[in-house]
Structures are given as structure tokens and as C-alpha cells.
């Protein structure tokens, strides 16, 4: 059982690192589309975390949450990508 605990700790560290890297890109991202790509990836990481929690605590109550998150992940990205305009062009370095 202790080996499985090490595996879960490693999974938690890796997913946290991935979420933090996506967050960094959301804050720093030079353009709006970089931020949308990063937020899409953050949502994917959240789905993975919800699934990992089910494996760790041995239940299946989070499946509807995963389903809703996977179904609505598209909306924000498509809405922003549709209305992004030419003004959001990356600024050239001086």
C-alpha cells in the first residue's frame, strides 16, 4: 500500500506543476489566444485531478462532474476565438 501512496503523491505533484505552468502562461501570455490555450489546458488538468481523486478515495461520485466539464470545455475557447480581433496582435519587441 505504501508504494501506491508514493505513486499518488507523485501524480499530485506532477498535476500541480502542470496547473501552475498553465497558470503562469495565463498570467504572462503575450496574446489573448495564448491565454485561451493555457486556460483550456488548465481545465483539462482539472478534469484529470477530479478523476485522480476518484481513484484515490475509491468512489465514482465525480463522474457527472467530469462529464459536464468535458462537455462545456469547448464554449469559452470557441467564444473567445471567434471574436478575437486584429488589435490583439502580439506586440513587436522594440
Amino acid at each position, binding site marked *: 500500500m505504501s*508504494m*501506491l501512496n508514493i*505513486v*499518488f503523491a*507523485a*501524480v499530485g505533484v*506532477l*498535476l500541480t*506543476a*502542470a*496547473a*501552475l*505552468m*498553465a497558470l*503562469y*502562461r495565463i498570467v504572462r501570455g*503575450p*496574446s489573448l*489566444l*495564448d491565454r*485561451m*490555450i*493555457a486556460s*483550456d*489546458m488548465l481545465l*483539462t*488538468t482539472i*478534469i*484529470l485531478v477530479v*478523476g*485522480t481523486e*476518484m*481513484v484515490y478515495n*475509491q468512489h*465514482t461520485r465525480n*463522474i457527472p462532474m*467530469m*462529464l459536464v466539464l*468535458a*462537455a462545456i*470545455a*469547448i464554449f469559452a*475557447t*470557441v467564444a473567445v*476565438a*471567434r471574436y*478575437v*480581433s*486584429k488589435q*490583439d*496582435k*502580439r506586440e513587436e519587441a522594440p
Partner: protein
Amino acid sequence: MTADEILDLLAGVFLLLGAFLSVAAGVGLLRFPDALSRMHAATKPQILGLLFVVVAIALSARSWSTLLALTPVLIFQMLTAPISAHMVGRAVYRTGNFDKDTLIVDELESVIDRASRDDQPGSDSAS
């Protein structure tokens, strides 16, 4: 080692693979230079990582009804991920958020050029 322990360990290994893909996407988001290559990195955990986690949940719960409930999650993600990737890629091309020097050939540019010339002769197109 009983069969239950082996299945639990296998679920842990699948979780680890999914988390590794997620970290790979995070590193790609940090290190890649422009939006198009960042998009390439960010889509890795969207399908394969989710597939690994779904397999891990199914191995850990060990029931057919759980697997049936998890299948729509994967199907929804597979249906919607290409649409959002297409929309973002289109917006990235139109706003010019990518490095033109990294493209070996840009077939879309000439197509847009020709289409806008055919539509409005005489007017300088925005494309």
C-alpha cells in the same frame, strides 16, 4: 500479490502516465515560442491523458457500469477538442500570432489572397 493489488498498481501506473503527459504539456506551454506550437503541446493531455485517467478509474472501480458512464466523457472530449483547436488555430493565423519564419510553406496565404481578389476586384484586401 493478489489480483486486486495488481489492478490497483496498474491504475496507479496509468494515472502516472496521464500526469506525465499533463506536465509535458505544461513545459510545452512555457518553452515554446509562439501560439501555434503552444497549441500543439497543450493538446497532448486532452485526449491521451484523459484516456489514461479513464482507464485508471475503470481499473480501480472494476465494474462495467462505471466504464459505461466514463465512455461519454471521452467521447465528448474527442468531439469538442478538434473544434476548439480549429477555431483557435484559425484565429491565431488571422491575427498573425505566429512566427512566419518557422513556416516552410504557407499554402493558406495564396488561397486567401486569390479568394479576396476574386471577390472584390480593385479593392486592396485585408485578408
